[in-house]
């Protein structure tokens, strides 16, 4: 496969690192070299959290240079927009879950939270493909990351990594008692 940079983002506490490690494991299963890095520490407290994943034959450094991501995966709309604006290549893809977590300046009324339409309008001039996901009746909001994996699998965004690879990794990453529900969400998102 050709080299690929995947940038994942969201808000502290949303489970970005789990999402990132599942994708990493899936890439490993498929035989790619992977290097990545997550945000740790202070920034996790309700701030923007990110995870960089670089896949390819030769990977030297873990951080994706600005504007060099092929794919941005976001667990929250504003973070999706931020990630796409700073990291996506022209013509890249943004997939985000429809969660809204208002930051301070929105709660205080000083700034407006971006709508889905605004996200589209700001990214369209860069030729960015935008996919927003929302799964009806999600059993638990903590399964939004599994839903995003389903969407990724259905869109075939990562070369050679089909739904069966993701499913296998999910089976090893999710505790047994929660597995059935998670796989159901994964499939539901694939079809959405």
């Amino acid at each position: 496969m050709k080299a690929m940079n995947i940038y994942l983002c969201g808000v502290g506490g949303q489970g970005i690192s789990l999402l990132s490690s599942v994708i990493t494991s899936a890439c490993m299963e498929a035989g790619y070299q992977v290097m990545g890095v997550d945000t740790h520490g202070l920034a996790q407290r309700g701030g923007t959290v990110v995870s960089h994943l670089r896949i390819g034959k030769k990977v030297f450094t873990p951080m994706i240079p600005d504007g060099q991501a092929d794919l941005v995966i976001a667990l929250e709309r504003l973070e999706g927009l931020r990630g796409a604006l700073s990291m996506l290549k022209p013509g890249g893809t943004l997939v985000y879950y429809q969660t809204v977590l208002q930051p301070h300046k929105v709660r205080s009324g000083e700034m407006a939270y971006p709508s889905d339409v605004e996200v589209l309008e700001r990214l369209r001039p860069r030729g960015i493909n935008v996919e927003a996901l929302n799964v009806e009746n999600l059993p638990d909001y903590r399964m939004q990351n599994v839903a995003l994996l389903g969407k990724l699998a259905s869109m075939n965004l990562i070369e050679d990594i089909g739904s069966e690879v993701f499913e296998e990794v999910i089976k090893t990453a999710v505790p047994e008692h929660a597995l059935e529900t998670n796989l159901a969400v994964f499939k539901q998102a694939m079809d959405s």
Partner: protein
Amino acid sequence: MERLSDMLIKQDAFSAIMMGNHALVRAMLEAEVKVVTTYPGSPTPEIADGINAIPEDKRPFYFEYSVNEKVATEIAFGASMNGHFSTVFFKSVGLNVASDSLVQLPLMELAGGMVVVLGDDPGVNSSQNEQDNRHFARMSYMPMFEPATPTETYQMYLQAAELAKKYRMPIFLRMTTHVCHAREKVEFNSLQISSPDWTPAFNASKEGPFIPITVTVHPMKKRALKKLATMEQEAETIDVNYVASPNGNGIRGVISASMPAMSLMENLDTTDAKVDLLKLGLSYPMPKNKVLEFLKSHDEVLIVEELDRVMEQEIKTLAYDNGLACKILAKPDTMLGGELDPATTYKLMADVWPDIFTKENTLIESESTVPRKPTFCPGCGHRAAFYAIKKVLPEAAITVADIGCHTMGSFEPYAVGETLLSMGHSNGTGAGFSIKNDSRKVITFIGDSTFFHAGMPGIVNAALYDHNLTLVVMENGTTAMTGQQPHPGSGEISDKISIDKVLEAFNVKFIKRVGAYSTDKLVAALEEAIEFKGFSVVIASHPCMLKFGRNLRRKKKDFPNIMTVDKNCSKEECAEIMKFDCPSFNLEEDGSLSINPILCIGDGSCKSSSKTGKLGLKKRSEVK
């Protein structure tokens, strides 16, 4: 995905995707480390997480969270003198705390050997500065390894351990934030866990002196310098000091170490430019012959290093002393700060050699959107405490922040805490503000882990001189910011050491303890404390709710309730409530306030923000 705890103690050789911090733990096991100590600080806390993932009965070494970095260093030192190979790890600025003892280490004969692991922070990801700790290696005559990846971290710790044991000395392993946190596939050797020999081997009369004072210092220093010279010989031949991309062009070369070396390799891989790279893994003492040979075989050599001009100065000195004609190039002053990521490194190379690095920088236009700063978690006692403090804070007051989650009180909308130096500085700094100052009340803050770490001397001093300031201890029962590690007052290591009793023993005359959620009581206590002439302390206490929530979920439970907003709550009152600024509040388009069920934990800390009782509770199960 195999569990970290299983992987770390696996007997067979294996390979796995692992973070630098975790790969280091496997190396510790393979190197048969016997004593490991730390004080938590980013980017290194995940080293302790890795250690703690191993069940205690399967862990062949002793590990503790010490009260601060200096004590942690001293414990590792004592253990090493007693024949036990030891390791201490901490963050960049932790070295400042440790330094009083640390700079002495190379003077000593360390029978067991010792590795000091640093988490430096170029780019200031989670520290109060980006100090370059390579200077400490020079100041104390202590060798330094600089791994650039998780694989190198694993390999270089093993090498550092071997050399530290062989030469009975301390050695630095300097990681940086994105080496600590980088993840990649690492190939691990097999592991034999044997039961360690705990015989105390300390022999002061045979191996001493161990008391560095006046006349003994020079012989000890001479021994340290001799060991350093031996290490320089090791650096000449060790495999981690090598020409990484031998193009043999004889014209242009680069000398680099750590992450910038990887940035260079990445850039060289994407261009046709022929440039040789000498990469130093054991960077101090510098292998002079190896560097000389590289300088002599190139017309121009560029030094690529993050932060200060440490290698540059040594290499230029070397070239001068040897009368070399080789042109030595280095970065501009504008690159003395920040990380040398691939893009920045490319820019440097393109500035120096525009004829061969011609690629246009494809920087996309930056566009801003709504900012999102870190904030207190839902239910955090610090938010409730700052909410109360804002109500009583005299307009002209001077507020002094300290390090911890409560530093975020300096952000909007609280904006309490106007200056910050270091761990535990607040009461020294606050006392300085209070001198000959009757008009502007000084209010200082400190967290409970920092209280024990470095806060007590400033507090003793404030009590001793009865400096006129009010200290608010922001107590949450844990070392929250770095990942909820235990501390002397948390009650997890042994019985709680009571901050109240400590303050009493320091003869503090005004001590009030209040639950941080009890806004009215906290307001009353603060008013009284601010009125009090002299040193007064209010302890605003509430357990860390992030830790509480994580423990609940471990038991497969959830918070039972969430907050509700009465639908008759007026816009004006909604706006008033919003000043509490819990992230689980949503501002609706019509100006009303709603609760985000994803974030709300039904803690009720916000209740006092509604004067007419418009905030209530309902069962979480009632939310769809």
